[in-house]
């Protein structure tokens, strides 16, 4: 079972290493980890996608909560949330086939962020499934490089 766990942490050196070390040391599996400053510059939010059964996930939440620099831990599973991945993908598209790629980008409400004689760099955001569907569709044109942020998430409502 995959869970999206969101942790508000102190924005200071060593916290990311501490959390990464916790996952490695206790053998917890993570699919992605995204970190960034919050509305309060003293705090960061870490969004972790982790896998395991209920007992493992309970331990992950509790062990994260024990870290002094972790202020709050929420498991978003089952909660009403907005989740997004962001991807930048460099596609090898010759000028004659660009039209087809543009159409796909439009359907996915993505953006063209860089363009050259032999490539297009595209930006797509959305839930994981949408990102993966997009990759599948542009694969035939030749994917040169891609980068993904890992999941970020917020609960819906005030």
């Amino acid at each position: 079972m995959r869970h999206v766990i969101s942790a508000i942490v102190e924005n200071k050196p060593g916290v990311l290493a501490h959390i990464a070390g916790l996952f490695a040391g206790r053998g917890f599996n993570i699919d992605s980890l995204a970190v960034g400053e919050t509305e309060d510059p003293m705090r960061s939010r870490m969004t972790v996608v982790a896998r395991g059964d209920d007992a493992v996930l309970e331990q992950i939440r509790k062990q994260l909560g024990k870290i002094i620099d972790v202020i709050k831990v929420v498991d978003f599973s089952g909660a009403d949330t907005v989740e997004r991945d962001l991807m930048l993908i460099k596609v090898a598209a010759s000028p004659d086939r660009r039209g087809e790629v543009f159409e796909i980008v439009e359907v996915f409400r993505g953006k063209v962020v860089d363009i050259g004689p032999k490539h297009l760099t595209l930006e797509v955001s959305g839930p994981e499934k949408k990102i993966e569907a997009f990759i599948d569709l542009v694969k035939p044109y030749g994917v040169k490089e891609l980068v993904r942020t890992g999941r970020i998430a917020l609960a819906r409502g005030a």
Partner: protein
Amino acid sequence: MPDRNGAHILLEALKAEGVDTVFGVPGGAVIPLLDAFYDDEDLRFILMRHEQGAGHAADGYARASGKVGVCLATSGPGATNLVTALATANFDSVPMVAITGQVKTHLIGNDAFQEADITGIVRPCTKHTYLVRDVTRLGEYLRAAFHIARTGRPGPVLVDIPVDVAVAKTGAPLPDGVDIPGYKPVYKGNRRQIKRAAQAINAAERPLLYVGGGVVISEASDLLHEVAVKGNIPVTTTLMALGAFPEDHPLSLKMLGMHGTAYANYAVQEADLLIAVGARFDDRITGDVTNFAPNATILHIDIDPASISKNIRVDIPVVGDASDVLAGLLSLMEHRDRKVWLEQIQAWKTEYPLAYKGDGLKPQYVVEQICEASRGEAIVCTEVGQNQMWAAQWYTHTRPRHFISSGGLGTMGYGFPAAIGAQVGRPDAIVVDVAGDGSIQMNIQELAPAVHEKIPVKVCILNNGYLGMVRQWQELFYDRRYSATRLLGNPDFVAVAEAYGASGVRVTRPEEVRPALDRAFADREVWVLDFAIEPEENVFPMVPAGEAIDRMIGGMA
């Protein structure tokens, strides 16, 4: 506030926290810190001979006194030598603050001389760490370090102070208190959960209290006693909790687990309610988790939510301090006599007592005599291995904070420096280190500060010429192939003691044991007693690793 430097802020903070002793070893990066100690009359600096010894001494001081232990080491190798001591304290929830020197802030990360990323190295084996880059924050971090070390589930906190921060000046006052947003330990148990727990206890026919070190830390022994007596609930303790419930009480089942008593382990397997208090279901307790307490509802009281349902699924969790929760339970519990259950337990006690056989100088006998000669009042520190288990089994533990041992990490070399620390924390007590001939050689250099500072610990070496516990496993599970466990080349321990200025005696016959102990305990000097015990004596009973805990071998009459 007049300007003062980082070193003076350190001293000011230590005093404000009630520290009277620091155990440490100097080095280049802490010269400014030590300079501040030079003309201070209130703080005692005990110069240990190895940083590991300093760390364990601070740990033993903390366990014996209940106060925060403090150690100090220099940067680089000094700091890395503390790692084992920090991991030991972390595992056993010991409140400790370690101060380390660090290279100058502008050199950090530059591979400077004697540089180590010590906060990075010890992060997984401490409760928290601080690297102080700014002298104006030093007071705040030190205050926070002590607060974190002693509250909640206690543990070691390391504060790393670069040389330039130690000499930098500031007028910033020491803050009165600290507010750490991510750290709010829960002391008060949830009332609804306590009610559920009390109902389960009142309804149980075969309840058993399984008590861990949390009861000692919470100073909850008296409450535990009241709970046990009111409900006629038998009590078994972990190694960490020996003495939390008096073993001469009829409700005591002594220790459980791998080398626990048969009757404690049988009681676990037959209980219909297991009441775990400040214990964490370690594998040395549970053996095979799928066959642990198979008939019991599990009630778990612990201040650390992460300990609950980690190894064993808990039916009734109560997060809180043992004292608070036990007091709550006591008010809701009804008196029960539980005659049938107690009769069953008495029958097991009669049928399967702890026992040893044979003539010669038996380690069990030596430990019994240590108990009698000290009237059961000694603070018993141990090393790790057979010596530790014999001390646990054969001394009658009746008081909390009187059994000091590395339980979780299992650190050989812990006992002697811990005994030094314990004696400093409790100057009037008889402090004994029950050692093996292997373990004692891991920190034997600390005889120097013990003698010089007149810290009169009594080292009792149960000398069998082997790394005994490993040899025992080799005998039982590896066809007596004693690979690398025979300790050839041991020194004459009496001569070693005398070379350091301590007193020593070698004991080879049972009738010499008591006179030697009486003489050493009556004397206010450091003693090394070298007991030439039966070389191949084993610790029994024993549950082979991974087996269910009622599948014990050996040691029953």
